[in-house]
């Protein structure tokens, strides 16, 4: 069933210039311009999607996830500019060697045809049309049917940009068939689809894992923050709040605080002081032995067994008492998802233990878990945060959307 669209994407990929060609720089530049020029039509299509969702009775919080505003427009345009700046980092490098050949180079190559599957959030359409394509990949974008009109309008802006940049328009295909049959058929084509990037609900990601196509995905963020008795407790409180409140449902949000019993009372008092006079809905799910230590000003509920290993997606943090770093690391091993783990401590041995033994895409020492973000860390613009163990782990930046060829200049050398 998908042969036609797969062969069109493959043909565009084959016809596209190599990584680093000036056409990609032009594409990033003109995509920003085309998004602005097409904005009235994109906004109109989005209004139609939002109205349709409201007619179907979708809850207001979900409708808001479909809506594109001028803020989103400005962010998308800024993303094109940032990506353009970062293109120069994806370049050929010489590898130091001492063997027969005099020179060995690593030459970046695109991954190939990339299938992105996502739900709602039409800004992901621009993420997918920008980052992979800027380094020579072809993309098939399978968004949610709730934003079909918006995605179609975004595709027109993207195609206009590709044409102006001198790139094949077939590099970006927004799949307009909402049927699951097409998605199933594509997932069965590892011969034609080189990489799969799902961004969406756990069920969607799990379904994509059944495909034989190599996958770049996040397994969700069941993230912990361990507060050791040597910690600066004021910092521990600030890190807790920054790791949860700005984006309670974000994948780098803290879900469970592993609190050293020796400082539990002092930590709760510091937390109550920090929240005094602030409007917040923060709720702690506390283990029974901690309840008596929590000041009345803090909102608490009993910790339930199913709270361990849970992503609350709300301003809720589970609090589990631990004796030492070994107990904390053991808890992380049993319940963590390998996304983001943090430690607040002054003791070098404790910090070293966490640095070396917490097995996650990112280990944060004495800071907010939300530092785990490509642009925030200066690693570059990211299309996802990966928790897989191969090819890329952590922020999926431009450099992770390519593979490479080794190229050697033998200068006449033979192996013999």
């Amino acid at each position, binding site marked *: 069933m998908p042969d036609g669209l797969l062969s069109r994407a493959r043909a565009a990929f084959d016809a596209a210039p190599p990584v680093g060609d000036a056409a990609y720089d032009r594409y990033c530049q003109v995509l920003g311009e085309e998004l602005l020029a097409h904005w009235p039509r994109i906004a109109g299509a989005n209004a139609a999607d939002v109205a349709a969702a409201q007619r179907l009775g979708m809850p207001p919080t*979900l409708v808001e996830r479909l809506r594109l505003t001028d803020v989103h427009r400005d962010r998308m345009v800024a993303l094109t500019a940032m990506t353009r700046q970062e293109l120069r980092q994806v370049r050929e490098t010489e590898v130091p060697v001492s063997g027969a050949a005099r020179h060995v180079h690593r030459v970046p190559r695109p991954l190939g045809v990339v299938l992105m599957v996502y*739900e709602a959030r039409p800004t992901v359409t621009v993420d997918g049309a920008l980052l992979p394509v800027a380094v020579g990949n072809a993309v098939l974008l399978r968004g949610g049917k709730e934003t079909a009109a918006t995605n179609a309008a975004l595709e027109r802006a993207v195609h206009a940009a590709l044409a102006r940049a001198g790139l094949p328009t077939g590099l970006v295909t927004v799949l307009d068939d909402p049927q*699951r049959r097409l998605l199933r058929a594509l997932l069965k084509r590892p011969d034609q689809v080189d990489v799969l990037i799902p961004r969406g*609900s*756990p*069920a969607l990601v799990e379904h994509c894992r059944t495909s034989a196509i190599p996958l770049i995905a996040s397994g969700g963020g069941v993230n912990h923050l361990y507060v050791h008795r040597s910690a600066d407790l004021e910092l521990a409180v600030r890190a807790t709040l920054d790791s949860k409140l700005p984006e309670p449902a974000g994948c780098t949000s803290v879900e469970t605080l592993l609190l050293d019993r020796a400082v539990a009372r002092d930590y709760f008092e510091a937390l109550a002081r920090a929240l005094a006079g602030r409007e917040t809905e923060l709720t702690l799910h506390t283990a029974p032995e901690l309840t008596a230590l929590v000041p009345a000003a803090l909102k608490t509920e009993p910790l339930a067994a*199913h709270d361990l290993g849970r992503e609350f*997606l709300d301003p809720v943090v589970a609090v589990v008492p631990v004796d030492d770093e070994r107990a904390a690391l053991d808890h992380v091993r049993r319940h963590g998802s390998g996304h983001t783990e943090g430690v607040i401590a002054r003791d070098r041995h404790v910090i070293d233990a966490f640095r070396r033994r917490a097995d996650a895409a990112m280990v944060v020492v004495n800071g907010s878990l939300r530092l785990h973000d490509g642009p925030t860390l200066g690693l570059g613009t990211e299309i996802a945060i990966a928790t897989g163990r191969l090819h890329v782990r952590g922020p999926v930046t431009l450099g992770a959307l390519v593979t490479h060829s080794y190229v050697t200049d033998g200068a006449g050398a033979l192996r013999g």
Partner: protein
Amino acid sequence: MPQELSLDRDAVATVVKKVVVAESRLSLPPDRVRDDEPLVGDLLNVNSLGFVGMLVRIEDELDVTLPDDLFVGRSFRTVRDLIDVVTAAEVQR
């Protein structure tokens, strides 16, 4: 020729509960979820934007094909609502 068949409600209930637990990012045995558990509440957090993924997971688990528009235009409040709709669906294997 695809074969139409009806689904066993208990089998559907187990699969639906397994999927809503995963969708709510919980680690919990499916049999700990009550039929009248709200889809958005203290325990579960399931929204309609995740329905495509849930449908394909349910299809995977039951090894059947469900109608594409199964969840369209319906409102679901509890786990039982989901179980009922999937059980009553005309499915193909």
